[in-house]
């Protein structure tokens, strides 16, 4: 029983990382008022770009993941152009970008033969003596670099949003672009920076799935994790720390499925696969019931394009 729990708990962090990274990226963008549905697509772009760099140049896995971040940020410029400059409906633009990315990554992976090629990827780092502590060692101190980096990243995003001038501007633009504009903050530029920075994190989430979790590229390999991350943002009520906690919850649900089978518990295999999605739906329902009549923490201008000269 102890081994079951230790192996289960030890796999949670690496399954939680993609959710946490993607949710943080989305929080940055949505706090600035841009409803970002592109996560599923940008994660694919991040994943494919990192795999492509890894297979072509064989660099350090971390360098490959940086490439994934850059690629996702680059594609997000297209999304920014559509929703910030051209004021396209953010839902439509997000969905089209996801569709575009699915097509693009599948096409490129196919044309260049990157599909289904295994590589060694990102391995765990043992923290010396700490890793040898029974029970706690394997759970906390035999993880990869990104898992350890998650704590400063979550802290950094939270600090940026709540404690810096840039964060104040970003939130002002998301809550009330008219007020922010009158104050002299450039709404378009702030939103653009927020979406680009957020998309880099979403790209890192995708790169992590490819380089650290699965260690191979397959079409549509994110299998809905981008959508779960969007739900996670609602669950976290746009707060980075709550998003990290939610990511751990979703990671633990995803981690328990293969462990149950390994422990000899026979359950309908395919119905079991629905658990992450049903759990997400359950969480959404729970959040809705809790906040049915209370204040919602949704940014005031979420999803609304800003036009200074609009007649209201």
């Amino acid at each position, binding site marked *: 029983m102890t081994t079951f729990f230790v192996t289960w708990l030890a796999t949670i962090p690496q399954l939680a990382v993609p959710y946490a990274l993607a949710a943080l990226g989305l929080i940055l963008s949505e706090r600035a008022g841009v409803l970002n549905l592109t996560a599923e697509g940008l994660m694919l772009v991040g994943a494919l770009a990192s795999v492509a760099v890894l297979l072509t140049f064989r660099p350090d896995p971390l360098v490959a993941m940086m490439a994934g971040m850059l690629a996702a940020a680059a594609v997000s410029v297209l999304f920014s152009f559509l929703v910030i400059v051209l004021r396209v409906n953010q839902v439509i633009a997000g969905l*089209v970008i996801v569709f575009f990315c699915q097509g693009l990554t599948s096409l490129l992976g196919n044309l260049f033969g990157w599909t289904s090629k295994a590589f060694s990827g990102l391995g765990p780092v043992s923290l010396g003596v700490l890793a040898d502590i029974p029970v706690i060692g394997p759970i906390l101190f035999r993880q990869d670099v990104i898992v350890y980096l998650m704590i400063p990243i979550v802290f950094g995003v939270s600090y940026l949003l709540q404690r810096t001038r840039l964060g104040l501007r970003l939130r002002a633009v998301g809550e009330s672009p008219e007020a922010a504009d009158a104050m002299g903050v450039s709404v378009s530029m702030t939103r653009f920076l927020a979406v680009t920075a957020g998309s880099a994190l979403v790209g890192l989430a995708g790169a992590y799935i490819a380089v650290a979790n699965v260690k191979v590229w397959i079409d549509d390999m994110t299998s809905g994790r981008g959508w779960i991350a969007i739900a996670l943002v*609602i669950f976290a009520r746009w707060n980075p720390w709550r998003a990290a906690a939610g990511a751990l919850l979703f990671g633990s649900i995803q981690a328990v499925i293969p462990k149950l089978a390994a422990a000899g518990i026979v359950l309908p295999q395919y119905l079991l696969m629905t658990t992450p999605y049903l759990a997400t739906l359950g969480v959404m329902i729970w959040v809705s019931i809790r906040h049915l009549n209370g204040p919602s923490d949704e940014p005031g201008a979420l999803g609304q394009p800003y036009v200074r000269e609009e007649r209201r």
Partner: protein
Amino acid sequence: MRDDVSDATRRASPIDTAGNAVIAKAHAAGRQRRFGQISIEVRRSASFPLRLFALAAALVTGLGLSAFALILVGVPAESLADEFVSATILDPMNFKAVLVQAAPLILVGLAAAMAFRVRFWNLGIEGQMIFGGVGATLVSLLHLGPEWARLPLMGLAAVTCGALWASIPALLKLRLSVNEIISTLLLNYVAYYVLLHLLYGAWKDEDGFPHSPAYAASELLPNLDSGVSVSLVLAGGMTLLMTYLVARSRAGFYMRFVSANPGVARALGLPVANMVLFVVLVSGSLAALAGFVVSSGQEGRLTQSFFPGYGVSGVLIGFLARNNPVAAAVVALLMSVLVIAGQNLQVFYGIPPSMVQLIQAVVVMSVAASDFLVIHRVHWIRYRA
């Protein structure tokens, strides 16, 4: 959070009127622009020529970019027109394939267009298609009813299952205001695994492959004497029915009201919630019919890959058609030409099928971008010296 913003407003109070803000800001910041700057306003209405110009410009851009991408992956430039026009519309075999492919695309396009009319983002078309296929297959497996009534029963079962599946996100949205974008997308994955559960379990064919036993001859959608598939007739009929619903019926009037301003509609005592629920059920039924049409008209059994891509195609068709049923049918037909051309490109030049998806995305992106010109007026504010 609220405090920060009101603080920001207070600090900015000297500059009030939006029009002066532009100039005042530039001066206040000490940035003397020489010429002026771009200003963007929302138009009250756009003239027909402008709309036409924007659409034409968008299509030229989108198709131009797509052609460029195709040439880049190795299709000879001179044969592009051949592959997309002559080989699809003028070749009788391929034209028949276009018509067969058009039926489910029309149905999913209608499904999306209807749901969007009441501001319900139905992204669960694929899940509803799956349950449509499951419902139809259930009737086939249980041999329900006499043979002559089998097909109508399968259609009825498909519609029931699809509508029931669609009612989940609809009720969640109406009762608990759960965001339907996320719930419908998540339910797609659930539906997919339920399908796999059936196909790898109880419904597995005797040949050992994960698909249902083949439908009997009486369970396949036949062709009419003219060679047109019944599925296309069904899709055409649904287009007319939806046109009636939208343009002529009381429900259509309510729909327009709900979409224009749900708050006012509710205040005036219109049954907003029931209206939304009804339309989402219609949308789910249409998607389920698409599932039935693909299973019974093309595959001849329930397979595990009869639905992918239709969901997004439906959404894109609905968007391009501006939620108009007849326009949706036309766009679906064009989309079908694209799909068949894509299949030919795959056979002759080895272009992966994802290329079609990319082209769809690029065209829709261009059209969405062109709306900017229709919705906004851009002009140049000149500063006087």
